[in-house]
């Protein structure tokens, strides 16, 4: 089973409308690289000028925020689901 990256609506104009992208990367960082190599226009929306993941882009591995899992170095395995969520809003 491949690893699935779920693409939010706001990103789909860069992914030719695709809501999901399959990949086989070993880590989150590698998955993001695979994604932005395939869709270069997405690159500057994923990372800022210093190369860091944009502050307002939240990335989840299955149900967990990657910041609780070791960030970009978080390892991926077959069947994992990577979720990109722009600008979590909220307010209690």
């Amino acid at each position: 089973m491949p690893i699935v990256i779920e693409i939010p609506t706001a990103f789909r104009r860069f992914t030719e409308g695709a809501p999901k992208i399959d990949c086989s990367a070993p880590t989150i960082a590698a998955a993001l690289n695979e994604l932005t190599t395939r869709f270069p226009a997405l690159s500057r929306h994923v990372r800022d000028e210093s190369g860091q993941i944009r502050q307002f882009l939240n990335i989840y591995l299955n149900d967990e925020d990657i910041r609780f899992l070791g960030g970009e170095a978080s390892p991926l395995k077959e069947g994992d689901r990577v979720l990109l969520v722009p600008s979590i809003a909220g307010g209690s």
Partner: protein
Amino acid sequence: MFDYYELRCRECGKTWGNAPRSFCDDCFASLEVSFDYERLKKTARRENLASRPFDMWRYAELLPLPENFTPPDAIGGTPLVRAHHLGQRWGVENLYVKNDAVCFPTLSFKDRVVAVALTAARRFGLHTVGCSSTGNLANAVAAQSAQQGFDACVFIPADLEPAKVLNTAVYGARIVRIQGNYDQVNRLCAQIADRFQWGLVNVNLRPYYAEGSKTHGFEIAEQLGWRLPDNVVVPMAGGSLIGKIAKAFRELVILGWVENKSVQFFGAQATGCSPISDGVKRNLARFEPQKPQTIARSLAIGNPADGPYAMKLIRESGGWAEDISDPEIVSAIQTLAETEGIFAETAGGVTAGVAEKLLAQGRIRRDETTVVCVTGNGLKTTDAIISHYPLSAPIPPRLESFEALLDQQLAVPTVAGKGA
């Protein structure tokens, strides 16, 4: 019709007109309502307020409301209490409590934000509204939806206080309980807003919703006699309110309704969920998200959407952020109730307890004017303190029984540690 406000990206500045959207498609930062202040200066007059009732709608010009807006109800307009007794205890002359524990109709400041969000929902033709909530927001969405004829669907963490769930259910709202914490509920709501054409007040209607918080700040300034305080202590969950109080003060200065003054902003969190205060205290560039574990569940947001902006405001204003433990929260709830007769929810205990801590640290000066913001009512979080008040044994309905009780209690003068 030309609007005198529109959505603007808080990072790149790109404008997006008026629509149910909360983030910039270019940089994914959040959007904020931006006003045409030059135009407002010509139309908004402080004198016009004199003939209006004391509720949040008296500041209608400074809110993103549609043309020909008719206010639905008297929301807001809560007391600014001169806290003499609490001030005496803390050694502060000019201490005030802005008491949104008695905000109409659901006893929290969330009534203000929902009121503005629902006007936006109506404007955009959205019939179903909802929210992710730790309780207070769900209460406000449910009540105002019932009153205004929206279908309401709210998403809450499954472990929420029973009183807060009941206070949503009673209005007939659909409640979806999620196995997870608020941040997980919130992530789901971001996906739901992406998929369905619903008005999620704190997701895709968030820029409009957040403007409602300004009325808390407008009222503080007006109730101080059109003056700004020196210090404000504000509870922080998502980190939005503190920024909107600052925006309110800034707008009053722009319009010339108050004199310019530097106000120090102090943020309050529970230690069990303190990503923003931790970020301020450790001088981090970005806050680190946390897994919340605190009785202050209305502040239990481990990944606060406006955390970066709250940190920036606190630093630039010369303020500070602090957090207190759960036992300290309970103690502060009791102090507020015993000195000022205000029964605040756990978040109010956080704010009061942090204010006391900041005074002790010397970060808030005792000779300055300080406002402590209480945003919710203690009747909703009774489970946090009920164990501190065991019921006394009942007595027969006879005078001699009461006299015997008095004798017994006089023999033990420290009943529950209360003074006269």
